[in-house]
């Protein structure tokens, strides 16, 4: 130790120290970022988060790719069949000019839901509710039967997509980086030294939180942009860019909520292991249990009709239609005794089929409508109960913005049903008139094109949850800061 440790310090300086000012925000952040890098945890957590997000986006893209290829193959097949039938109709081939044969036996139109710009980032219910229906002139129960009218919220497991990584794993990264953001400083005595050195307790802690937030959100934004590119999101168009920006905002808000919660937990003088337990418990409650309970409540309170009842109803309706068709055939042979022992006329047969389909559809309509009613009620309940869990709120918002929540899929189903009415009418009307199809009719076949719901409707589903998330974050952060002002430093 050399003498004169305070050499050159004037009495004034000795009494008051050299001129000081509050450390610049940028300098503080650089200090904390340097510390985070040296402590080693942050880089690993962030590399893992980035890799997971990109892998999840690629997985989502692969899943959508399978759907797209399937739909393209179906559309191609339908187009080829249509061209062949039109050509045959031009030559007067009997089966090609018969609206009954074509509409009820040969030709169908795959009604395909186009992938939304952010679809690969959040599969949502995209793998639960069909993205295409094989529409024919037969009753809607034929193609609706391939769908599973599931509950509107599938939160228990979820797909491995970017939304999954954000809702389930992002909180764990935030917790890993900030569960002891105050407690560790207190336990190792740094907080006291820092405050004695001149830092305000709140400013010191906020500097640490800000550095962690900067690292997490910086990585999140870069990773999400990489994920969006990997998922094929069209960043050059407003349809892709705007939802993506809102997605970034939603993910950031969700991360901010977890930082605020970590700060809130740390604002009481507890040991680090207690803080870790509390935050792990909060994650379990808010990300796993409450969404599962929301799911359970929705499906219990507004249970979908029994699948057994649906099958029984379908069977009974089919039998009733068969009986009616048999009676119709008896009447036909009574009216045309010369045809006894032979086949029915093709037109008459398909008129009978069309009538049967109508009868079955009418019988099935109330039950199928009940599924829709219950699904809407479930969705309504979920939209209320989502506010219990930031995880549910975020998931709902992200899937709404990605167009993979139940609302867009139900809109698709409704448009398909409307299209089916036009398609079946296109064949039934000439069938009932006894008319035939011409090549011009084939050129005038109804085409399905999904009409995207207005953006405002999507925002109306996504923004309230994000606003609530913001309010919760501000509330928790505000309480935490108020407590930290009185936090026992020593």
């Amino acid at each position, binding site marked *: *130790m*050399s*003498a*004169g*440790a*305070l*050499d050159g*310090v004037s*009495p004034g*300086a*000795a*009494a*008051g*120290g*050299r001129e*000081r*000012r*509050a*450390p610049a925000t940028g*300098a*503080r952040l650089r*200090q904390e970022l*340097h*510390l985070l890098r*040296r*402590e*080693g945890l942050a880089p690993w957590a962030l590399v893992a988060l980035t890799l997971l997000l990109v892998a999840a986006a690629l997985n989502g893209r692969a899943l959508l790719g399978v759907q797209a290829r399937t739909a393209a193959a179906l559309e191609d097949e339908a187009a080829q069949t249509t061209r062949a039938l039109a050509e045959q109709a031009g030559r007067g081939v009997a089966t090609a000019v018969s609206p009954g044969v074509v509409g009820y036996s040969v030709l169908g139109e795959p009604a395909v839901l186009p992938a939304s710009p952010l679809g690969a980032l959040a599969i949502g219910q995209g793998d639960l509710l069909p993205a295409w229906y094989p529409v024919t002139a037969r009753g809607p129960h034929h193609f609706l039967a391939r769908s599973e009218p599931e509950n509107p919220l599938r939160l228990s497991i979820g797909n491995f997509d970017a939304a999954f990584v954000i809702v389930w794993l992002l909180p764990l990264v935030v917790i890993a980086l900030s569960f002891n953001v105050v407690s560790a400083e207190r336990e*190792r*005595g*740094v907080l*006291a*030294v*820092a*405050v*004695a*050195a*001149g*830092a*305000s307790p709140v400013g*010191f802690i906020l500097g640490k939180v800000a550095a962690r937030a900067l690292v997490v959100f910086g990585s999140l934004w870069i990773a999400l942009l990489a994920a969006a590119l990997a998922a094929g999101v069209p960043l050059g168009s407003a349809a892709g860019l705007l939802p993506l920006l809102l997605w970034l905002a939603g993910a950031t808000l969700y991360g901010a909520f977890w930082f605020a919660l970590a700060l809130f937990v740390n604002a009481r003088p507890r040991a680090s292991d207690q803080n870790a337990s509390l935050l792990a418990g909060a994650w379990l409650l808010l990300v796993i249990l409450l969404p599962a309970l929301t799911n359970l409540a929705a499906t219990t309170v507004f249970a979908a009709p029994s699948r057994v009842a649906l099958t029984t109803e379908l069977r009974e309706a089919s039998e009733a239609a068969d009986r009616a068709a048999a009676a119709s055939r008896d009447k036909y042979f009574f009216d045309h005794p010369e045809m006894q022992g032979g086949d029915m006329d093709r037109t008459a047969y398909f008129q009978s089929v069309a009538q049967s389909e109508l009868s079955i559809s009418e019988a099935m309509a109330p039950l199928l409508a009940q599924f829709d009613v219950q699904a809407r009620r479930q969705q309504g309940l979920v939209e209320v109960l989502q506010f219990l869990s930031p995880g549910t709120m975020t998931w709902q918002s992200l899937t709404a913005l990605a167009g993979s929540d139940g609302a867009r899929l139900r809109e698709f189903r409704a448009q398909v049903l409307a299209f089916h009415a036009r398609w079946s009418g296109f064949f039934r009307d000439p069938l009932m008139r006894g008319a035939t199809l011409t090549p011009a009719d084939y050129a005038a076949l109804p085409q399905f094109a999904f009409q995207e719901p207005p953006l405002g409707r999507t925002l109306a589903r996504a923004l309230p949850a994000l606003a609530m998330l913001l309010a919760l974050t501000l509330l928790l952060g505000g309480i935490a800061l108020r407590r930290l002002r009185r936090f*026992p*430093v*020593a």
Partner: protein
Amino acid sequence: MLETRKLSKSYGEVAALRELDLRVNPGEIYCLLGANGAGKTTTINLLLGFIEPTSGSAQVAGIDVATDPNGARSRLAYIPETVMLYGALSGLENLKYFSGLSGQALSDEELHGCLARAGLAAAAHDRPLKGYSKGMRQKVGVAIAIAKRAGALLLDEPTSGLDPKASNEFSELILALARDGAAILMATHDLFRAKETGTRIGIMREGVLRAQYDAASISHTALEQAYLEHMGD
């Protein structure tokens, strides 16, 4: 420089400090002796503004700690019993970090100078702190105080756990700081160190300053005898 007037702190029915009147002038080292729970650390925490007094006042360089804790803290430095700091950072980086907290932007040369003045070997400046001995960490703590150019130092059992050589080095260090005009208040259990280092010595028990002595005019034996008498009341 450091002054308390009728300073008291109670936790419910328990009085941790009772009407402490104390003054530590520039260039003076005041050693507070006493058993655990005597009120030494409470006194330091009150001077740091870490806790609020129940009654009375504490001042640093004439600044009331309760009214302006940040202003008061800007005039002093604090070295706890165990200076942990950040193990992942080197001594130099820790010094840069903590001097940065007080708004100082010192050059690396100045920081190395502070560490050298605190007695830390140059070879250790850039090594991670987790490899430091306790004595080396204490030196980084002193370097933080030097960098801050604080007019007052609060030391809470700084030599606890140090080997005799490190304790002696530390004593020399704070003597040098006192010679340069710092007012130093040191809580300690070490009677020998208090006698060798201190200008004045106070003995506390149950939150009360029982006796004060001029270090130069009391022998080791007399100090020990007085201490035992006060502890045995």
